[in-house]
């Protein structure tokens, strides 16, 4: 095991883990941040999406050793009072079905809106293609992203 200092949601954490441990499992098992989900472990589903210095990344496909000085944000740290425009829009549209993919969807969408405040359909499709929703909430996700963008 090795020791790492990582910054998650603005807080510094000391964690002990093997260097090859995916950040996903460090977040969940070591830090108890369960909002970031395991779906595939190979970067194909987006359930584990977090922000790495503001960019949407798959936490299953980066190791704890890769984190370094980067600022990591998870769904728990997206906003203090669950008031991010996307969280508001998600409520307004009643987006989730099972809900499992939704944290990853919101984190991908948040990174998209940060770089492209008014995305069109093609831009939303391209940015969200990496996030599978097995329940098929895609239309609601798209509508909610558009609502959030207009706020």
């Amino acid at each position, binding site marked *: 095991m090795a020791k790492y200092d990582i910054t998650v949601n603005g807080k510094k954490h000391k964690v002990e883990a093997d260097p090859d441990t995916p950040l996903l*499992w460090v977040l969940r098992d070591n830090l108890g941040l369960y909002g970031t989900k*395991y779906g595939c*472990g190979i970067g194909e589903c987006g359930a584990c999406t977090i922000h790495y210095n503001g960019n949407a990344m798959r936490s299953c496909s980066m190791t704890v050793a890769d984190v370094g000085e980067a600022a990591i944000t998870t769904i728990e740290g997206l906003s203090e009072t669950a008031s991010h425009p996307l969280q508001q829009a998600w*409520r307004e549209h009643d987006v*989730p079905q099972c809900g499992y993919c939704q944290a990853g969807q919101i984190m991908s969408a948040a990174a998209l809106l940060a770089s492209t405040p008014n995305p069109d359909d093609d831009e939303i499709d*391209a940015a969200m293609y990496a996030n599978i929703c097995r*329940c*098929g909430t895609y239309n609601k996700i798209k509508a909610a992203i558009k609502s959030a963008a207009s706020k």
Partner: protein
Amino acid sequence: MTTDLQHSRRQFLKITATVGGGMMLGFSWLKPYGEAEGADIITDFIELNGYLKIAPDATGKGSLITLLSPNPEVGQNVKTSMPMIVAEELCANWKDVRVEQAPLNTAVFKRQVAGGSQSIRQTWATLRNAGATAKHLLVEAAAQEWGVPAAECEASGSFVKHASSGRSASFGSLAAAAAKLTPPAPEAVKLKDPSEFTLIGTSQGNVDMEAILTGKPVFGLDQKVPGMLYSTALRPPAFGQKLKSFDDKAAKAVNGVVQVFRFANDNKIAVVATSTWAAIKGKRALQAVWEDDGTLESTASQYEAMRKKLDEAAEQPKRNDGDVKAAFATADKIIERVYESPYLPHNPMEPGNFFANVTADKVELSGPAQAPERFRGEVAKLLGRDESTVSIGLTRMGGGFGRRLRGDFVLEAAEISSIAKAPVQHVYTREDDMTAGIYRPASMYKFRAAIKGEQLVGYHLTGAGLNAGNVVRENFFPAGAIENCLMESHDLPSKVTTGPWRAPVTNFLASAEQSFFDEIAEAVGKDPVQFRIELFERAKANPVGKFEYDAERSIGVMKLAAEKSNWGKAPAGVHQGFSAYFCHNSYVAEVAEVKMEGRRPVVKRVVCAVDCGIVINPVAAINQCEGGVIDGIGHAMYGDFTLEKGKPQQENFDKFRLIRMGEQPAVEVHFVKSNTDPTGLGEPTLPPAGGAVANAFYRATKERVYVQPFVKVMKNLG
């Protein structure tokens, strides 16, 4: 077998205490690991029956109402809609209501199953009675206190009011007195007329919304208790193989791996570790030797065997009306088509997992389960325990689609915990989830139609499936509408495990059948909608034998879909395809619209008309319908799962293609207005979707598609 009610009452208190309590939410009723019993426990909640308990709010003027949601929540949103039914009859203000997931408790609840789209249909009466009975007691308590006849009192918005004296009391203030009254006789309990509903029929947001939006631990995989270990299992890589021997040196050398052992009749290897990652790494480091245990099946030869079967007569037909042979012998025209579909894994986004803590005197289980009552029995049997010592807590499920109706992951968790002598969170990796599946069986159909003049006079359906049971639905349309109707089913044995997958059998049967009806309509020169309506009219006027559907309601959804989609009047460049199906007690018709983008046909919109009786929560009902349509289209177009020598060839989402953002059509849902008792929506919109798309593709490309997934044969789909 009964569950101790005292125990269940304690559970209620524990659940109350942990609202917002963080990590333990969702299974904190596990007694040894429950939250510290702090001062914030609300102890004055009064349980009026197993479904609800009431306390005064902090001001003392209002009410806090906790409703227990009995059925497992798998994304179908029963955790919101079932309590809405109770709250309606209780006359509670929905804002005063908090919802808790009930654990398995067969002493109080009936049929705690998420399956067959039956949660709402089968509990409708019970839930209404639970609410109405409690309301009766609250009204009675108020009437006694005020010394007025109960008939002069009315309940609404969590208050009982006496109009002539202007008196009013909150449910919270009345609960203690109400609990002391003798429950009313069932016939004394009055239910509302649907015209009096004020909550049912209004859109209410998902009760778990805040937890989902902020990443609270509400799913099975999010469970953690002190001292808990994590486990994974290595299983035979191919159907038809078994474990011969293994070397665990490298696995045991992985940091965090604490135990490695054989289990499940010595056929699997468990790795128990201090973290999920160590359990996964340990499993990867195992060196196992497998040996063949019978034939190893491959997709190509399985398909050959099914095709051959389609030409054989079954020993006993499932349905045989009239004289099919004569109808075909004297037909002007015969159409014959064969349709094929592959195995499908369920692929819920949350892979299989379960928490188990097996100790000397009890077995505590918790996690995502669609059929917990069955699992309790299976675990008790496996471990040789009395069922009364086995408890199951229910977490929110990250999808299920039928996969969690089978309890392999629960049994593995329980056995591993009992051997490891520790509480474990047992985890399937995505690869485990996809390759150790309980698949939708691969199946094929041969349809034959005998046409005389403009009439369909004979119908002969032969189905064949792999380990699939009966693959025809002999009491569904067109049974009842055609004088000469023969339906036969062949079940081929296979080692590949199969089971219910969202809308079992009909998920492909409907798609194939509705494509075939499009061809018959074309052959007789009729509009596809009109052609179907005429057949249903025949079933109404001259019903042939027994059948399950209501022809009038079938016609109703078909007309609604045609009207809302402007059927037959689509703008240039928009190609429409029609499909309709009845299953799981609900009626659905769909119109798919396809546009050509270059050489590629693209599904742009689906108009979906639904008759499920009373709609409890419209926003959630629309979500279910839309999800079913997109699921149906996604799997019809892309879903392929194959075997080589018994070994699954798709293990993760790099090889197994699920529909993704941008590939889904817009979905428009319209409900038939109805006061009929409600039926379910988890499945019914899925079966017709594939056929609607196939028929629209035909209009757009002039090509019929007989094979699922469509991408396998339609190269332009991309």
